[in-house]
């Protein structure tokens, strides 16, 4: 049995009504876990949504890029995952 691998996990928080749909967060997310939502916000833009929940590392690069302060990422505690290596 291989040693467990420590992964960093995180999630994003989105203030949808601030979003103007620029797409920076989606483009520059390193694990590419964001995509435009199908729905609209109050101003008619498609905000982002987290499509691969357990892929987010909470690196907050989305938060750093967002010109509208509409999204930010938070790192949760490092999670131990037992993984099978072949």
């Amino acid at each position: 049995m291989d040693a467990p691998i420590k992964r960093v996990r995180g999630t994003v928080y989105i203030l949808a009504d601030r979003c103007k749909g620029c797409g920076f967060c989606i483009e520059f997310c390193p694990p590419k876990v964001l995509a435009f939502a199908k729905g609209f916000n109050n101003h008619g833009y498609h905000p982002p949504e987290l499509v691969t929940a357990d892929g987010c590392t909470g690196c907050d690069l989305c938060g750093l890029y967002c010109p509208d302060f509409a999204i930010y990422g938070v790192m949760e505690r490092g999670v131990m995952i037992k993984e099978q290596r072949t």
Partner: protein
Amino acid sequence: MSAELKVIPPNPVEGFLRSDRMPHIWCPGCGIGTTVNCFARALLQSKLDLTNVAVVSGIGCTGRVSGYLNLDSFHTTHGRAIPFATGLKLANPDLQVVVYSGDGDLIAIGGNHFIHAARRNVDLKVVCINNFTYGMTGGQLAPTTPVSAISTTTPYGGYEQPFNLPYLAESSGAIYVARWTTFHVRQITHSMTEAFKKKGFSFIEIITPCPTLYERRNRLGDGLDMMKYFKENSVVRHGAPTREVDIGLHGPITVGKFVDRERPDFQELMTRQIGRTLEALAAEREPSGGGEYVAG
């Protein structure tokens, strides 16, 4: 998923914003907000006492930054952020004074003040958001607009040689000169933290998309297209000679930290000079060995 109420952690930069004024007026894909994010993080990382940080801006889209920051912030007249900031800083040297304004405001109407403050080495941190245009008024020619670019006042294409801002800043006397694009968020943050530690005129130029005006009129896509362009076409050259870092309508953008040097700031120069002279005058009146000052 646990049934307990999840506490949503706050956005680390929310405290820097006047949240009651969100959402802001900048266009979708405008990079100004991105630079403000970097600024907020730079302040966090620098652990500066925010009570002593003051932001001064001029007029324009970038000029609106001061209105959204939850610090002592001053939205002054067009081109005059730097002299206002000079008065503020010299009247209270404990303040960390940041000038945050656009290329048109700082370099056209404000150009004279820019070069003099750099010459004097006034301890100001100047963040220049360069989107190659006058955004707020609809996209007119700026002193940074590349040759042949379309603007509303040069509808047939521009023909003026633009300023090379790092070159201008360095030759005027700035002690810290860096340029990044809004793609380079971590580097912007880092440069800002470096600038906060400098004592003197520090200049950071940030190339930013203006999708509604400059990009649209010049068929350069939208904000995201520009960000990708910045990513593909930026060339990092720390220490590059600033005379070589001109920007054209297409082609590479040289980024990096170009100048990082030391020289006494304006306050120090003034205090030293006046202090020295006053001491000499006092010594003339009281020659060593005591005795009375005798007129004539």
